[in-house]
């Protein structure tokens, strides 16, 4: 089997594992901070998955620089070794968004803690039915 494929599968496996770890934390942990951490882990798993999809072995930056063109001569050949720029852009955006969400979440946790004196999610149930 191709090394690349194994590597890719490993990465995909790792990111999916991260996703499920995060989900596990979100669904079972009672501590608000652990839930927020879970969300963050899920985000990271997903970002890794994105990156994996754009992975190219011995890839170069997706710029048609004179250096690359000199080495590979044609545009098509150059495109073959370039990593996908779109997923990188997407991941960058997603990371920023994930950071924002985590920050807001932690701020909320802080305020919840001040009002309830606990970070146990089971005890914060004033709004129901």
């Amino acid at each position: 089997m191709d090394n690349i494929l194994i590597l890719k599968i490993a990465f995909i496996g790792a990111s999916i594992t991260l996703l499920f770890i995060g989900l596990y934390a979100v669904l079972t942990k009672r501590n608000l901070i652990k839930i927020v951490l879970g969300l963050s882990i899920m985000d990271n798993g997903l970002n890794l998955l994105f990156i994996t999809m754009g992975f190219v072995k011995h890839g170069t930056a997706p710029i048609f620089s004179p250096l690359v063109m000199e080495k590979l001569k044609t545009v098509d050949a150059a495109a073959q070794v370039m990593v996908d720029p779109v997923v990188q852009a997407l991941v960058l955006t997603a990371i920023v968004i994930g950071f924002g969400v985590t920050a807001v979440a932690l701020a909320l946790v802080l305020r919840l803690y001040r009002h309830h004196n606990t970070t146990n999610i089971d005890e914060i149930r004033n709004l129901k039915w």
Partner: protein
Amino acid sequence: MVAVNPIYYIALPLFFAFLLPLFGKIHKELIRIVPGLLYAYFLGMSFYMLRHVFVTGQPYIVEIAGWKAPWGINLVFDAFTGLIITFISVLAFLVWLYSYRFKKVEFDNALKYFVLLMLVTAGSMGIVMTGDIFNQFVFLEITGLSSYGLTAYYRGRDGAEAAFKYLLIGSLASTFVLMGILLIYTQLGTLNMADIARNIHLMKPSLKIAAFLLLFMGFGIEAEMFPMNGWAPDAYSQAPGPIGAVFASMTSKAGLYALIRLTFTIFDFSSVSKLLFIMGLLTLLFAEGIALRQEKIKRMLAYSSIGQIGLIMVAFSFNTYLGVFAGIFLMINHALIKSLLFFSASYLAYNSPKKYIKDIQGFGKVMPITSFLFALGAFAIIGFPPFSGFWSKFYFLLAAAQKHYIVLIVLILSVSLVELVYYLRVVHKLYFAKPTGDYEPHSPNWNGMLAMILLALVIIAIGVYPDLVTHYIDKAAVMIMDKAQYIHNSLGI
């Protein structure tokens, strides 16, 4: 024309939102006035552009930074998205007018409030207009983050709790959406919705289903679909009153729009409407039934709002022209009427210390105009003519009858009876019992009153003369049914 461009809807609020603190440094009042000017401008621009689209039939397409459509991000202002943008603009303006001097908002708080308000409108409008699915995700997050902030706007204990619930479920939604986008991108290598729609048959069937379900989940959460709407009643009831109206008329509608775009344009499943139908019906039945047993007025309105969204989903799931027509009409009506109800209810609830329905008894005497407008909203949403709610309900039932769904009609009308009971109970409370005395009356400010009266007038005007909107809805319904036209508009092929 330079003064009209769909990109302003997104760029200007983002720009001014972050400049607002600086305006505050110049003069405190500018914080309140600048968003208003912006919304007034949007109002004019929407009507101008919608009229133009309506007359010429040519949509406004903007390609951002000059990149051509499949590669760059494009914004589409056509008969359908334009209509939604227009009524979001109308409501944004009215929400601004209502909250111009809302209760006792301090200077600091007013700044945060208006910044978040501008972000949430920018996000909602972005979700509706963008032609790029990842861009839609970004706007979804902008909307989400600013909504969390607005939910927790009152610094009380329950606001934070509601916001946390919203955030948790909202994050799951964004995870689902992102995974769906990833699946589509790895398969088709494009993010443009029109381009995806054109090539969707190339996807592996199993992955196509997975991608659809992931996106369906993600946007379904935003659209408050059962059983993923646990956060919604909390968020609606804890956010400031006008923000309840924003949730009902903008964010949930944006999620709904994304769902509609998903089922009507992007994917080519013929049986998806069945899923939308079942989920819409469940949403409707659960929410309206539970609304019957609510003790707090804003929570009751929240459940009622969720129920209405279920009804809209059912209307779109008919997949016929008349069904879509009714669905769009319901969307507009729901946005207008529910905003009026939230506006008036928030003053009613503001005066009762514990926000229970039983605490607002006798307010018909204390706050006559607000109570009257609440009653008018209740009548409109129940669907009495000559208020606008009647027409959308009538078109909906006509669409159902056309598909021979007699049992559905009976079911929907039974739900309407439930709705009638719980709304009129509140109205009775307003007018029948004597005030308990356990309140300090705060009558709405002139601006709040003006906003409510304007809404009421629009509701009556549409009710008496529905042709004001039906022509536009007609064009919009044709547009959403015509997938090829959308692809043509976006990609030029």
